[in-house]
């Protein structure tokens, strides 16, 4: 049989020591109100965690709004620039066409003379 299960280690005297150890090492309750303090700290930790999450989600939302707004404005500026360039190109084209027209008219007039 297993020496451990048999309670060996010194026979009766050792068994008495082991019984005494069990007595000495009995579980003891912590001071009064321990459970209340633990529950309060747990509730506080949860509230603090919730507040932390609220801050994190607010910060993420703010970053998202700022990011989207900046992308929107960038696109707007690009569109405006493109529009300006188009208008400028059309103006140049119109000027060139007017010049060509004037030159053509001048040539025709010279030939007739």
């Amino acid at each position, binding site marked *: 049989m297993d020496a*451990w299960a048999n309670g060996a*280690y*010194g026979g009766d*005297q*050792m068994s*008495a*020591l*082991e019984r*005494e*150890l*069990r*007595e*000495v*090492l*009995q*579980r*003891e*309750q*912590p*001071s*009064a109100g*321990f*459970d209340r*303090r*633990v*529950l309060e*700290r*747990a*509730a506080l*930790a*949860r509230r603090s965690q919730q507040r932390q999450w609220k801050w994190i989600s607010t910060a993420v939302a703010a970053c998202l709004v700022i990011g989207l707004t900046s992308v929107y404005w960038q696109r707007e500026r690009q569109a405006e620039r493109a529009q300006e360039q188009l208008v400028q190109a059309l103006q140049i084209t119109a000027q060139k066409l007017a010049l060509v027209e004037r030159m053509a008219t001048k040539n025709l007039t010279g030939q007739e003379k």
Partner: protein
Amino acid sequence: MFSWRSQAAADANFAEIVREHQAMVYSIGWHLLRDRAVAEELAQDVFLKLHENWNSLESRAHAANWLRRAMTQRSIDYSRRARLRPRFALEDVPEPIGPACDADPLMSEHLESLIARLPERARQIVVLRYQEDLEPAEIAQLLGVSVGAVKSSLHRSLAWMRGRMEHMGVTK
């Protein structure tokens, strides 16, 4: 069992676990560190950690094992960090509200001092064996050592304590 279906139910479950296991968790710290204030502080931390890990718990037995393991580990860590020497200023701390020990006061006093003088690992093994009534295999698993090492440590601790008590003439 430990669902978060409602916050109120989870809170009630947690409160129940705290009340059920506070003596076990606190006593492990107290018997290992011999400092009631530190034992209470560590016990509170361990329960808060349990609260954080609530979703990973599967059953009440799992919670009890988790608490036992966590408190033992926290006490070991604390002891190593602080290089704590056992203290016996019992008059400075509040009286425990647990049942009074009906053992021979002289023998109990000597035994307490002998337990406190055991090396750290041996003291953990004695506390887990005689406070928590764990089998050597369970202690071995909890502390991450072999069963043989647990049995051998326990044997040496008991023999040493018996020898000291005989020497002091306080054996029954």
